[in-house]
């Protein structure tokens, strides 16, 4: 009888764990927690599904901001579109006080920098800090000299432990549709390397891809929070992990000298995860992957 009760209790406990929408990250109270979405603003069912997964994830992993990797809005960009493609899908997060910090993609209107809920304060490129992390947001649609000088100076002057950059066009990508924006890589990578950028997030290709560290920097492509190009990846030796079968978004936690990441599909499945230790100045890397990472390799 006691064994049977223990078995039932065990089954119930397992079921409860399985029902949890997202396996938790370290979830430390004093850590910096955020989500990342790219190419999300379709207003379609998949965007709403991903948004729902984000709400579920936040119930166990209380991230307080979301980085938007561009193409935040497709098609019409009227006030009604902002409701349908942004305010409605993320209503629960917005109500809970989650801040969205946007970058612009090639489908966004330039005037969207003034949209209050994107928190861009009328700027194409800007930076902000959370705890020991400084995030730098760039406008990769137009990489003018002024912006290059700004990122060079801002990275140089940043005193936080972690330097994270994000923008729309990926410097490294192995998706077939677009691939890497080498024109931008030639301009930005030397600056990132010089100033010890730790991690870079981009969108544009409608897949998820984690790139092996390049010159000491970790790159993520996460451009499938609304759009999807199923089967569009052609992984190369640069590819550490990828997922191109469904929409996805990312959860990120920076706890001390470690960055934990988790990529989650529209169905709520973890498709990649791991831990990035903060790189020493030499640029050496020491990523440890969780078991989920193996699942996404073909």
């Amino acid at each position, binding site marked *: 009888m006691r064994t049977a009760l223990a078995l039932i209790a065990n089954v119930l406990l397992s079921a409860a764990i399985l029902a949890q929408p997202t396996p938790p990250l370290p979830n430390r109270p004093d850590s910096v927690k955020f989500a990342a979405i790219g190419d999300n603003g379709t207003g379609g069912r998949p965007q709403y599904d991903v948004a729902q997964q984000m709400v579920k994830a936040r119930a166990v992993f209380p991230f307080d901001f979301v980085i938007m990797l561009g193409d935040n809005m*497709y*098609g019409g*960009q009227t006030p009604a579109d902002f409701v349908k493609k942004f305010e409605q899908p993320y209503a629960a997060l917005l109500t809970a006080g989650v801040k969205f910090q946007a970058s*612009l993609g*090639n*489908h*966004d*209107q*330039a005037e969207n920098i003034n949209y209050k809920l994107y928190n861009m304060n009328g700027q194409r490129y800007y930076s902000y800090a959370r705890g020991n992390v400084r995030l730098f947001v760039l406008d*990769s*649609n*137009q*990489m*003018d*000299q*002024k*912006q290059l000088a700004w990122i060079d100076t801002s990275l140089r002057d940043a005193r936080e432990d972690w330097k994270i950059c994000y923008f729309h*066009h990926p410097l490294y990508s192995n998706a077939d*549709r*677009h*691939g*890497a*924006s*080498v*024109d*931008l*890589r*030639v*301009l930005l990578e030397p600056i990132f390397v010089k100033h010890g950028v730790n991690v870079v997030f981009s969108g544009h290709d409608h897949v998820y891809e984690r790139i092996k560290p390049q010159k000491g920097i970790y790159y993520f492509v996460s451009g499938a929070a609304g759009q999807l190009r199923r089967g569009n990846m052609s992984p190369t030796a640069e590819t550490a992990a990828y997922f191109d079968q469904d929409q996805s978004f990312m959860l990120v936690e920076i706890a001390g000298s470690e960055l934990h990441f988790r990529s989650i599909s529209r169905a709520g499945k973890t498709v990649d995860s791991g831990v990035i230790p903060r790189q020493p100045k030499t640029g050496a890397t020491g990523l440890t992957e969780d078991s989920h990472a193996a699942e996404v390799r073909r």
Partner: protein
Amino acid sequence: MTPWRTAVPRLSRFAVEHLLLLPLGALIALVWVNTRPESYFTFAYAIAFAVNDVAMVFFFALIAKEVVEATAPNGVLHPWRRALLPVVASIGAATVPALIHIQVVDALDEPMLAEAWPVALAVDLAVTYFVARVIFRRHPIIPFLLLLGIASDALGILALAMVSPAIDVRVMAGALIFAAAIATAVGLRRARVKSFWPYLIAAGGLSWYAFFYSGLHPALALVPIMPFLPHAARDPGFFVDAPPEAKDTLSRFELWWKYPAQIALFFFGLVNAGVPFGALEAGTWGLPIAVIVGKPVGVLIGAGAAMLIGLHLPSRVTWRDLTIGGLIVAVGFSVGLFFTSALLPPGQLRSEMYMGVLLSLAAAPLAVVAAKIMGVGRLAPE
């Protein structure tokens, strides 16, 4: 059947090499960037300033020289009243494609490309002249199209100065330096200086610095200086080589600088036309659609408006000729690439506009085919 030797019009070496070297540079750039992108962009960025902002000064100076000579007796701009109709028509030829461009890129879901609308105003004068001669041989519409092209490019340059996001205008100081450049050129002209070097170094140098300092594109720095260089009493014709024995200052300038300008043009194509095919999205089609549809419509509307205010079409120029002419001036090529490089910094938008400029070259064969179908010019079926 017209023998090919007579079917292909004679042009100056400058114009011919313009028509060959720029596409050659562009072709090499396209192959290079799509096979070894990192080395291409490292190279292109390293020499971009030297090519786009310095060497191209001489290309635009030589184009300006053609325009200055056209104001002399025998020239298409002489007397100036002849220019009125094409100038008025150019407003239509500029406005309609610009408006179409803004609408089309929005419909193609790349609204940020709208800010590059001045590229829709660009007209490549050498291509215009060449294609117009192929279709019309000798016809009053040819000077009409050249004038329209010059006016449209001038409007484009004005638009560039107004909307360029790269401009960090320091107007007053820049204007003062520019005034000093013009005063120097006037002084040299009054002192009857025959050598082009003082104009180039003193006036041109000041003008280049004024443009650069003001945030305007310095490649255009010699354009306002060229009218002060003494020129021949009569225009030898558009894109006609200056004879080696020519003594006037403008011709000496051309003889000295035509080869460096051609090399500049080759490198201009090489540096600017490197478009990775992966960067392209639907918005790329915005410019070709805008100019191929909008230029003929704009020319017709512009010419119609000019006639409403009492101006007259040149004799023997019909509405069908104007329609074909509108297609011919849809090719922006060298000027389109230049406007794009001046307006948009590196990134996807620039790549898409560059490719749009290259795709709008299709207007030239389209004009030839349309002329054949519509029975216009010498390509009309006998």
